[in-house]
């Protein structure tokens, strides 16, 4: 894995956004060659989305030939509910860029047949040629998407019941009323994300530090599902200083020492116009 350690949330968001931008540009997407991107929701990726929007507005990148696949969506929440992941993606990303609606894919939590919806989502990913880069976050309990502790590390897109921890963490988006928080969600599986060519996990904040420690310094364990990516050939963890608080000093020093190499990955590629 590459462990990228930046000073703070803003810098981590910027690094991640530049990485995504460069990946898309170097891929040279076109009408016969779409760049497939897996996307997360939540507070962690907000800064990254803002930066990507900024790069789009500056003309550094276009999403015209990008296909996106979101990780998850609540079950039973109306699509236009302000807390649905459809609303999140529209308000925080899609409405600010030039992506075509038919190239975005978000699981439909109101589908008549949820299992069929999940199977269809997997098929859409396959039809699109697989995911080039899957961006994700990590929960305080080490989960990726809604793959709660105990989820199979080879799982596929399916319906999941949310853990109590997750429901409580989400209550803040539903006026603090636990009864209003959805209890089920559709989510890509750990196996689904593992199929991607490359995986990038964003982890910021001290409250995620223990989960990061479990994910990369302990063994592969289905109680901390992000640990599965230890067995993926191309994983990048982008974090801020606070998220490293539970890691060994040795680990942090090693990867900080590599930053001059890793930073080459976010330099503007030759095709990007030199604008400020």
């Amino acid at each position, binding site marked *: 894995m590459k462990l990228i350690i930046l000073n703070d949330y803003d810098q981590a968001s910027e690094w991640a956004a530049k990485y995504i931008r460069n990946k898309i540009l170097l891929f040279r997407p076109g009408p016969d060659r779409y760049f497939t991107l897996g996307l997360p929701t939540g507070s962690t990726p907000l800064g990254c989305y803002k930066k990507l929007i900024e790069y789009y507005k500056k003309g550094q990148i276009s999403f015209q030939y990008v296909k996106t696949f979101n990780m998850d969506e609540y079950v039973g929440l109306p699509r236009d509910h302000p807390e649905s992941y459809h609303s999140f993606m529209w*308000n925080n990303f*899609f409405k600010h860029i030039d992506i075509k609606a038919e190239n975005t894919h978000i699981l439909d939590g109101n589908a008549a047949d949820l299992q069929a919806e999940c199977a269809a989502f997997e098929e859409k990913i396959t039809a699109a040629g697989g995911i080039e880069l899957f961006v994700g976050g990590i929960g305080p309990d080490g989960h990726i998407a809604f793959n709660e502790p105990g989820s199979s590390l080879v799982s596929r897109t399916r319906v999941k019941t949310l853990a109590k921890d997750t429901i409580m963490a989400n209550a803040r988006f539903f006026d603090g009323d636990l009864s209003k928080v959805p209890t089920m969600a559709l989510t890509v599986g750990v196996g689904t994300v593992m199929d991607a060519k490359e995986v990038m996990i964003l982890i910021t904040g001290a409250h995620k530090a223990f989960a990061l420690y479990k994910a990369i310094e302990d063994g592969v364990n289905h109680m901390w599902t992000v640990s599965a990516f230890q067995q993926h050939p191309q994983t990048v963890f982008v974090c801020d200083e606070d998220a490293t608080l539970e890691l060994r000093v040795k680990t942090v020093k090693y990867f900080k020492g590599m930053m001059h190499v890793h930073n080459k990955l976010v330099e503007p590629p030759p095709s990007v116009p030199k604008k400020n």
Partner: protein
Amino acid sequence: MPSNKSVSDAAITQFINCRILRDHRLQRDDLWVREGKVLDPEKLFFDEKGYADKLVDCEGSIIAPGFIDVQINGGYGIDFSQASDDVSSGVSFVAKKILQHGVTSFCPTLVTSPPAVYHKVLPQIKVSDGGEHGAGVLGFHLEGPFISVEKKGAHPEQFLRTFQSGGIEDLMEAYGGLDNIAMVTLAPELGGSQSVVKELCQRGITVSLGHSVANLSQAEEAVHHGASFITHLFNAMLPFHHRDPGIVGLLTSDQVPAGRTVYYGMIADGIHTNPAALRIAHRAHPSGLVLVTDAITAMGLPPGRHTLGQQVIEIQGLHAYVAGCSVEEALEAASLHPAKLLGISHKKGNLDYGSDADLVLLDDALNVEATFISGEEVWRKGP
């Protein structure tokens, strides 16, 4: 980008680089319009996989709902209360002119007149949509003749009337009919007026109290029967008195039925009302404030653009400054509140999804840069 809509083939316009008035705040967001109505872009994106055909770059301007003037007696040399054979061209002339002041809908107002005038003028104008030709007509505002002699103001005394036959018959006789009437101003202390208030409200006509010496309980009774507006607060009514606040007391009355709001018109030109009085009213009842021009053709005020146009502008600028209220509150007093007063806020006076796309583009000083009706540009400021 070509559009791709399964629901409708109509063109979609996206206003970008603007601040729109939504949820009582100015927000940095785009505004989408299709078939003359404000469109929900999220629905468009996810349901129809659609996008805009045309972009309008607002260059940072404010987009507010088009202004609604519920009290305007004429302007630019036109007087709506004149018994002319061709009232409609006068109304149309004014309707077109007021577009440059961001007014997209209005109520042509008639002051106290003899029956002959009403019988001649009223049938000539119908409620109509606005457009390139001018602002939309929401219906007449009939100010009088059932008003108080003591508070006639500039109204001609010989044509004032009281209720004789008891109610609606007097109105029918005076006006000749009640079609295309949006509002009637009357004095609720007149005998027999309360049943008239009730009947008018039942017919969907807004009843306003004004030119009256009513005390607070007479005013409250009228509100109980459905009256919902006060014509030019403070002017042509008893002054506020601490033992009987009169009509002014409606602003804080506890007798207003739950869920209902009493609105009050203000001419905030600094002349009709002292700014301090305006501030008292606004602070007591901010959600009821409705800005009106009460513009007239002549009578001591310079006619034409200054009277009508400047008043609207001044009202915006002056109000925002004088009342110490926010820009958003000032804009709502000229759009949302009059729409709610007239019961048309489901389609006018706001930028909610589904509302008519009557818009006004403003700079930070609230000068009008452009006016749109049903999404079409109907006026733009010259260079």
